[in-house]
């Protein structure tokens, strides 16, 4: 071996080859320390326990949840020696370990994204009232998906549903969901709304929905998103970033389409209302017609009464003035030879006396005038 020595870089390469062969991946758990990010691209930290320390390196986009010094984490990594002879773990995935750390990581990310106003109320869009195309991102094998589709079909029809099947748990879930989101957003005939559905379950792992790149993808989706992640206890960051949050997959179906029964009831009410208004109008016009008729009749009646009265008066007058009346009361009419009524005569004249019963021709023998 001394006769064929390796160069330094060759030695490093050889050792790395061996490492890659023997340990393509190792999973190590420890406490984070000396955490730093350089140039917003390169992440360095140490992983340690009571007796040992290992340096770790990763790219910032692989850091999908925040970690900090003192946090216990698990890394999935490949061991390497760098060109500078430093032994380090090249980390592909890092996950906080233990509820406290998970919560801590969650809180850090929540604060960070909140500060960027990713969860602001005015960023949230209203879902379309009657969507014609709905995108669904879910695991088609999950109960949540089945519930969602069932309630959707019960409530409404005539909608085109495009389903992107993904895993909703595990480390691959965020990446698959992000790809599905991008795909649906870029479809030429894209959906009006996207439902992100995960089957109910309380103790299940929600961590995929607290993945930073996924949360950002949900917040920046051109198409509005409703999350139906169905976790009984916790709210995920995807829930906060979505335009609408549903409590469960079934609830998501209720929020995303109307209920045809309600519409049918509303339709019936509308038709009844129209009927009522129509009928009311007819009643109103009939009443008015009756009132007009009444008014006209009473007007005519009044006129006739007036006329009758006038005529009666005339009649009375005529009767009064009618000479015949005088005759019937015993008076006589005195006429001269020319037939006209006279009230005096000369002696020797011929006069005609008309009584009730007779006409008498008489000669005047004596006249006495009164003053």
């Amino acid at each position, binding site marked *: 071996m001394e006769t064929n020595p390796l160069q330094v870089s060759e030695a490093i390469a050889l050792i790395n080859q061996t490492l890659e062969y023997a340990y393509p991946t190792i999973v190590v758990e420890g406490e984070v320390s000396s955490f730093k990010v350089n140039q917003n691209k390169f992440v360095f930290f140490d992983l340690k326990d009571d007796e040992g320390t290992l340096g770790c390196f990763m790219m910032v986009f692989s850091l999908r949840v925040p970690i900090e010094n003192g946090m216990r984490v698990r890394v999935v990594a490949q061991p390497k020696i760098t060109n500078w002879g430093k032994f380090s773990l090249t980390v592909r995935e890092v996950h906080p370990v233990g509820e406290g750390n998970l919560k801590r990581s969650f809180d850090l990310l929540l604060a960070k994204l909140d500060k960027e106003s990713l969860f602001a109320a005015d960023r949230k869009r209203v879902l379309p009232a009657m969507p*014609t195309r709905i995108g669904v991102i879910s695991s088609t094998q999950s109960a949540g998906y089945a519930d969602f589709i069932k309630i959707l079909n019960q409530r409404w029809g*005539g*909608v085109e549903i495009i389903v992107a099947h*993904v895993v909703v748990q595990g480390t691959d879930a965020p990446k698959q969901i992000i790809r599905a989101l991008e795909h649906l957003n870029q479809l030429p005939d894209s959906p009006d709304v996207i439902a992100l559905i995960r089957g109910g379950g309380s103790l299940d792992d929600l961590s995929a929905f607290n993945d930073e790149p996924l949360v950002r993808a949900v917040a920046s989706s051109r198409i509005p998103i409703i999350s139906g992640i169905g976790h009984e206890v916790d709210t995920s960051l995807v829930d906060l970033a979505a335009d609408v949050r549903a409590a469960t997959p079934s609830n998501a179906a209720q929020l995303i389409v109307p209920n*045809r029964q309600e519409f049918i009831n509303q339709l019936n009410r509308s038709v009844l209302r129209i009927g009522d208004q*129509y009928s009311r109008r007819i009643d109103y016009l009939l009443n008015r017609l009756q009132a007009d008729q009444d008014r006209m009749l009473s007007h005519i009646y009044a006129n006739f009464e007036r006329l009758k009265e006038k005529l009666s008066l005339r009649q009375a007058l005529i009767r009064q003035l009618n000479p015949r009346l005088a005759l019937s009361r015993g008076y006589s009419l005195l006429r001269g030879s020319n037939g006209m009524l006279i009230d005096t005569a000369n002696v020797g004249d011929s006069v005609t006396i008309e009584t009730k019963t007779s006409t008498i021709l008489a000669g005047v023998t004596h006249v006495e005038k009164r003053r």
Partner: protein
Amino acid sequence: MLKKDDESLSEQFKKLDELVNWFEQDDFDIEEALQKFEESSEIANLIKTKLSTLENKITVLKKSFDS
């Protein structure tokens, strides 16, 4: 096809809404009212039939979103 059907569904809803509003006036013409009343009945029945019979079309994408 589905989209066009649904577009006319929204249009029909709108037409019915307009008819309801027309009947809310104080003094509409009785002759016109008869015709509009019949129209509203027709539209309502059309919508109800459509709503009751239209089904959803589900397409599961063949594309895999695996790594």
